Every structure is written in structure tokens, then in C-alpha cells.
């Protein structure tokens, strides 16, 4: 409970430490779990590991871990947008590259760079999306698993 209090305080005051999940080691998953105050489910799959965190606010976050122990993908679904800054860590800055030209209104956000592929979509009360780091995809694992 004490940990939760500290995390809550950090969120409120904006003094967020390095959240870093995507591209980080598996241990960062527990940081997400704390931030989301969620229930964690884990399972081993062919060529990677899978964690699913369900937040009391209804958001489900899935995290995909390579045999090297790195989080190579995340996916989300829920009534609100997740905290992408927290989930993407250092890859968050890649989002800016998608915002140029005629503005797309009320639609999805799709980012495809060498470093990051991200899709965010849906509408009020139903948001979903996924992101992965192409260079961290384990061999013999398709990006299709991140969803």
C-alpha cells in the first residue's frame, strides 16, 4: 500500500521517474503494474513471454517480452487512452514524427518509423492500439502477435 501511495503522489505531482517500458527489461513490467494498480497475468508463448495487466479503471495492457528479456511490444484496450508516455518510455518522442501535413481529425494515430510502429485508434469509451520496436522482435516471432 505504501508503494501505491508513492506512485500515486508521483503521478499527481508530475515528478515521474524513468517509467520506461517498451525497449526496457522485463522488470519494468512491474512498474507498469504498480502504475495501473492492476492484476497481472503471465504466460509463456512460442518464442516470447506475455504479460497482461488489467487496471481497475478497465484498461487492459498487454506486454510482450523477448527471450533476451526485453519488452518488444505493447497493446492496450479500454475505456480511456492509456498513458503512452509511461508505456513507450524513450520511444514516446517518435510520436511527434507522425504529426505533419493536413491534420487528420478525430481519427487514428499511426506511426511507422525505423524505430517504432504504433497504432492508436477507437472513439470515446473504446480505445485500443499497439506498438512495437521492429529491431527488438525476436526471430521467428511475427509482429502480428502484438495486438
Amino acid at each position: 500500500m505504501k508503494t501505491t501511495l508513492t506512485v500515486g503522489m508521483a503521478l499527481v505531482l508530475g515528478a515521474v521517474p524513468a517509467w520506461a517500458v517498451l525497449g526496457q527489461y522485463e522488470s519494468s513490467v512491474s512498474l507498469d503494474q504498480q502504475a495501473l494498480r492492476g492484476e497481472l497475468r503471465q504466460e509463456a508463448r512460442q518464442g516470447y513471454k506475455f504479460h497482461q495487466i488489467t487496471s481497475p479503471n478497465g484498461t487492459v495492457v498487454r506486454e510482450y517480452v523477448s527471450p533476451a528479456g526485453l519488452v518488444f511490444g505493447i497493446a492496450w484496450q479500454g475505456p480511456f487512452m492509456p498513458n503512452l508516455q509511461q508505456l513507450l518510455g524513450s520511444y514516446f518522442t517518435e510520436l511527434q514524427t507522425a504529426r505533419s501535413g493536413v491534420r487528420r481529425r478525430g481519427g487514428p494515430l499511426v506511426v511507422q518509423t525505423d524505430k517504432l510502429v504504433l497504432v492508436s485508434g477507437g472513439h470515446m469509451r473504446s480505445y485500443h492500439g499497439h506498438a512495437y520496436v521492429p529491431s527488438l522482435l525476436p526471430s521467428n516471432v511475427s509482429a502480428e502477435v502484438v495486438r
Partner: protein
Amino acid sequence: MTLRNGWRVTWGRFLGVVTALIVLAGCGGGGSPSSSTSQTTANNTLAVEVNLGPANNYVNGIFATVTVCVPGTSTCQSIPNILVDTGSYGLRLLSSQVSVSLPQTTQSGNSSNVLQECVTYADGSYTWGQVVTADIEMAGEKASAVPVQLISAPNTGLAVPSACTSGGGPNDGTVDMLDAYGILGVGGYPYDCGDGCTSASSAVSPYPYYICSTSTGLCGVTSVPLANQVQNPVWLFPQDNNGVVLVLPSVPAGGQATASGSLIFGVATQSDNALGEAQIYATDSYGNFTTTYNGVAYSQSFIDSGSNAIDFLDSATLGNIDCSDNPGWYCPASTLNFTVSNTGYNGVGQGSVEFSIANADTLFKTGFAAFNNLGGDSGSSIATDYFDFGLPFFFGRSMFVGIAGTTVPNGVSAPYGYWAY
């Protein structure tokens, strides 16, 4: 004003205070209206226009004028350039465009504790501001004491919580950014959050509602009773309150400078909003249905007048038709024609629709606002989850939106609301 609605406020935990049951004072929204039994017939038709919006850069923006009043008074203001959005729920107004003084929702006994809301949209942009109440008048219809979001201009009022900006997109609190004076959410839900925001245990960031102290500037997420959530004003009309019909004319393949249409309140409540030949497509509990294309079912599809394109699939899958200078838009060398099949929740509603996608760059160069063939991506090169049938899909149609929980015409089952076209 009467005291109403217990409020369990979770920010007390953050401040090391025992979480207490706090009572909210204010002019909350009314309870569930009964179905239309009124003997009188209201003028239920509001004019809408597709144009470039007040900042002159909203392609396929659809706008109306909405009148807001201080609750229970004749102190009113008509505000133009309000985006008509079937992909959201509730009225949101830029505070910079509102001159009447709308009362803010506060905690009883502590008026320095105010209710604020952050909405982060799928593209990462956000609106942040106070929850206030207003009487809302559209055509001959009136909803009383409706909770409304008053969107703060950037760097005014209470600081934006970090979770609110965590989508990485812009603050849409100015006319230049929103390219509208507000958003009228008339999609198929009564509330912008609903039961998901009423329990204290659900109030875990990121979360739309905040309680903020105007004396300390601190904000924390909070649950909110249904009556105080921002809500679809149509649902609070005394009649014609079970949905809307958005009617737009056909436009030529090359686009049209502007297009005029109607937002009709009510579904099958008057002679002007009968279903006629329209087929009902039930939505699931998330407001979605299934679109099937090339044998693949995309189960989280939706219809959204606030999206300015038909967003689906990805450029690589469609033969590398991305626009070189406008990322995300489609620029095929020649117009592409699509036939897809839509299936409602539990199979209620089944039928195919056709649409075309033309070269967005070519269309943009016309300077026109209304296009029925603008497209963009909704995914990467791996399978996506949905088709977003944006405003192009509305031209030449009467699009019915049925609000969840209302009686469904024709007696079909659509517990979570429906589309009909």
C-alpha cells in the same frame, strides 16, 4: 440548489487524508428521461453545414450552432461552429468562446474543490477543463442543467495533469487547434464515461475526471456519479430523446465547397425521423460492430462524423498509396472502389456498403471542404482492428444513431445502441 449524489474522492488518499464520502453540490443533470410521450411536437431539426471551420483548415468538418443558457434563466448565448460528432458523448465548449457565466460543479461544503475533466482522444490530442452545467437549446428542443465540459485555453486555469498530456498530442484548447468552437457529442451513449466512472475503486490514472483544489492547484482522479458526468444533451430532452438522424446530401467525386444538411432529433418519434428503409445495426457494449473485407473480420468498427476520413487498413496492404506529403492519408493514382460487409452485434444488421477512395492531395488542392472519398490508414502493415467510417460515409445518407438503453424501433435487440442507414 439541493444536495445530491455522494462522491467518494480518491485524491484524499494522495494527500494522506482518510478517503471520505463527500457530497456534491450543483446543478447536476437530471435522471433518466422517460420515452417520448409528449403530446406536443417540437421543431426537431437543426441545420448543419460541412465547411472548413472557423480556423479554415478542417476538411470534412461538420458544424452547427448551439445555444447555451445559465441554468433556469434566460441568459443565453448562441455559439456557432460546434462540431457535430457521433464519436463522442456530451457538449464541450472552448471557454474562450463562452461569454455567459455557467456554474461550475463543486463539492458541497468546499467550493474551492472543483470538478475538472481531461479527454484524451485516440490521436493523443486532449481537451482539459471545468465541468459546468448549462441549459442547452437546439432547434425547438431544450435540455436542462446538462453537465458540459468548458475547455480551458492552454496555460490558463488549473495546470494540466501529466496523465492528460500522456497521449503525446496537442492541447486542443484553442480555435486554431480545435478548428471549432466546441464539440457536440451525439453518439450512442447517454454519458461520456458511464458506469465505468462511478466507483471509487475504478478511479486509477489515466482517468477522465479530476477533483482539483483551486487553493492548492493540486488535482487527483475521482469517480463521478452518473448525473454529474458530461452527457449527451439529446438524451435529456423531454421528447425526441432516443437518438438523432444526421442527413447530408450527396456530393460529387471532386468534392464540393460546402454542404448543408440536418441534424434531426429523435428516431421514429416524428414524421421526419422515421426509419423507413434504413436497416438497424446493433452495436456491442463498446459501441462497435464488425466490418468484413477480403474475408477478414474487423470487430471494432464504428461510424464517426467527427473523423474526417474513412480510416481503414494500411498503405502497404492497399498497394503503397500513402500520400508522400500528408502522412496517413491515401493518395491512390486512380480512385479505388471498395465493397465491405457490416454485421451488427449478435448478427442484428447485416449488409454490404460501397465507398471510394480518391487521391487526397488532389482533393485538398481544390480548397473545398466536403468530400465523400477521403481515406486514411487505421493500422500498420499487420492486421488492424477496425474500420472508422468517418464523415465521407455520411454523404447521401440519413444516418440514424440510437442511444444505448432506449427502446429500439422495429422491436429488434440492440441493448447497447445502434446505427441505422
